[in-house]
């Protein structure tokens, strides 16, 4: 059985993740009216550079805890929404999916919001790094300083989720 939260090197299987989520609360699944899915794909360019491929690295046990935390935050904010989140690590080619987030809810508004919130929070607090390999070199991409207790960052994720 695929878990709700995972990080690893295997290609992401959205159908299996969605099936796990549907089965995770089979008594309430029949009252869900919306499924919103987000896939993050490896792009062939970034900041003007032509990208050949990416390598993702993670502090896996902490990443898993961060995903579970994001799930709890989303459940606190949108109690009727349920979420699954898988992240991939290792070498990823252009067009491959690095992250899959699936949300089910009785109502589409909450499903969209919780799904968007989750990806914003991943980018803020998940201990995952991507290394870009481009023409003539490579670089570790560095985004946000991870701080799960930064309420300003959390509020910004909620704002982007249009909640």
């Amino acid at each position, binding site marked *: 059985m695929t878990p709700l939260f995972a990080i690893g090197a295997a290609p992401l299987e959205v159908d299996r993740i969605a099936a796990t989520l549907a089965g995770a609360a089979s008594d309430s699944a029949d009252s869900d009216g919306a499924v919103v899915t987000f896939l*993050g794909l490896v792009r062939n360019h970034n900041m003007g550079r032509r990208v050949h491929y990416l390598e*993702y*690295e*993670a*502090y896996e*046990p*902490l*990443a898993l*805890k961060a995903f579970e935390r994001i799930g709890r935050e989303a459940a606190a904010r949108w109690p009727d929404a349920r979420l699954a989140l898988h*992240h991939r690590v290792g070498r990823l080619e252009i067009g491959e999916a*690095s*992250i899959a987030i699936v949300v089910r809810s009785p109502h589409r508004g909450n499903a969209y919001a919780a799904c968007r919130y989750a*990806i914003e929070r*991943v*980018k*803020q*607090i*998940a*201990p*995952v*790094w*991507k*290394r870009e390999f481009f023409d003539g070199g490579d670089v*570790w*991409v*560095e*985004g*946000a*300083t*991870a*701080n*799960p*207790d930064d309420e300003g960052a959390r509020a910004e994720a909620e704002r982007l989720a249009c909640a």
Partner: protein
Amino acid sequence: MRVTVRLFARLRDITGAAELARDTAPGATIGEIWRDLAREFPELTGYERSISTAVNADYARMDTRVAEGDEIAFLPPVSGG
């Protein structure tokens, strides 16, 4: 007191090691371990204000005290998703 230090992404490239064993005084804080490391690898100094840190795979603060056998992680700004 012996602890394990884990380093990720560019911090790992700078130190050349994903994992280091370090001896430290009892009651040392994570910040003290970091500053020792930055003396050893001066390129780390630029990360002082942007790193996050964890103890035994839980987010922690630079003033968190560590214990024998702890796994301390230093995390540069993240870029997952």
